Every structure is written in structure tokens, then in C-alpha cells.
């Protein structure tokens, strides 16, 4: 039986990252795009924690900072989404063109 190594965790994290990138690039709903960004941040966190088993606890501390970042990003992103919905009555990213001319 193959023992579970760091490589296994890295592959899982890469799969999550790719799923997040697919969500960001293909979906039209802003809420789901924000959720895909959360998936990407989580993939990075999984990498950090997996590497912390090799190089000491610094990776886990950094993962906590990334979670803090994710909370700030979600709060501001959802605030922007509410402001956008109030102006345009839609949640499609295609129609976010207020700064285009």
C-alpha cells in the first residue's frame, strides 16, 4: 500500500485550485465567482499546511493569516456585490461595465 506523502496533499490542493480557477473564469454569477476565490485560497492553505509538516509550524501560522485575508476579502467583495445589485438589479459579471467607456 502506498503511504500518504506530501505529494498526495499537493495533488488534492492543485485539484481544488484548478476547480476554483475554472469557476472564476467560466461562471457568470458573482456570488459563485466569490465562492471560487474562496476555493483557491483554501487550496493555497492546504499547500501551506502540508508543507508545514516538512519545515515547521510557520506554514500553519501563514495559513491563519490567509484565512484572515479571506474573511476581509469576502466582506468587501460581498459589500461591492450589494452596491452593484442595488444599481443594476443583476448579479452577472458580464454586466459589470461601469468603468468601461
Amino acid at each position: 500500500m502506498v503511504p500518504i506523502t506530501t505529494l498526495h496533499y499537493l495533488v488534492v490542493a492543485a485539484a481544488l485550485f484548478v476547480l476554483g480557477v475554472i469557476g472564476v473564469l467560466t461562471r457568470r454569477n458573482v456570488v459563485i465567482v466569490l465562492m471560487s476565490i474562496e476555493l483557491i485560497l483554501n487550496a493555497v492553505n492546504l499547500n501551506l499546511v502540508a508543507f508545514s509538516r516538512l519545515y515547521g509550524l510557520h506554514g500553519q501560522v501563514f495559513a491563519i493569516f490567509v484565512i484572515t485575508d479571506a474573511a476581509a476579502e469576502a466582506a468587501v467583495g460581498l459589500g461591492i456585490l450589494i452596491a452593484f445589485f442595488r444599481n443594476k438589479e443583476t448579479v452577472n459579471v458580464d454586466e459589470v461595465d461601469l468603468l468601461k467607456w
Partner: protein
Amino acid sequence: MQPVATTFFFYFLAAVTVLSGVLVITRRNPVHSALALILALLGQAGLYLMLYAPFVAGVQIILYAGGIMVLFLFVIMLVSIEKSQKEEQFNNMWIVGLLAALALGALFIGVYVKGRDLFAGREVALPEQSNTQQIAILLYGNYMFAFEIASLLLLVAIIGAVVMAKKRI
């Protein structure tokens, strides 16, 4: 030598996480996506536990699955989702985005397979009982300044979210 249960739980949790991730990006209803994302976060917390990171696993469950996802569900409740569910869910360049993302994934896997000898068999068992203490020592010692900056970042995010969501200041 690892016990058999380690292998079983790793593949179980990895499957839960990745399949929930697929559900997140394919569901039409954003509420279903949010629930699938909660499941993915819980599976990932299990993976953290397997990596001897109980504190990060707890933070993941309390802060992510408990806090951020409630925020998401609240916003889904505030914006109307009936109209967007009837529309096309994927943009018209979706095939390009899918191919680009898959190429990125292939690049990751290629690099990992090529460089796997760099971190093969170097795993050390971290101290499990004193994990939280060790993280606290690092957080309030080496990373004191970054910790303070993080609190400032959260303050800015609170003010930013209020300013964005308020109708008139």
C-alpha cells in the same frame, strides 16, 4: 509505516473535498453552491487534522464554515436569485477558460511529479499536544508585526464593507 486507516481517511476526505468543489462550480442555485462549499471546507478541516494541524482545523470550521459562509448565505438572501437562475450560467468564453485552467493543472502536476524527490520521506511528526501553544508563540513572537497588520486589515475591511453596502453615508 502508516496504519491502513490513514490511507482510507485521506482518500475519503480528499474525495469529499474535490467532489464538493465540483458541485460548487456547477450548481445553478447559489444556495446549493454555498452548502457544497461548506462540505468542502469541512472535508478540508479533516485533512488539516490528518496533517497534525488541529488549531488550523478548528479555525477553518469556526471562521470559514461558520462565519464566512453565513455571510455568503446572507448576501444570497439579499440579492434576488430567481432571475439569474433562468439565465445562462456559463459565459460564452467558457471553453477557453476551461482549457486554460486545465493547462494550469497539468503544469502543476508536471512540476510535482518532476520534483517529487525534493520532499519525499521528509515528513516529521509535529508535536500534536502543544500545537496551539507553538502557534501562539510564533504568532506573538516572530509574527507580532504581521499580526497587528492583520488586525488593521480587518478594521479596513469592516469600514470598507459598511461604506460599500450603505445607501448613503
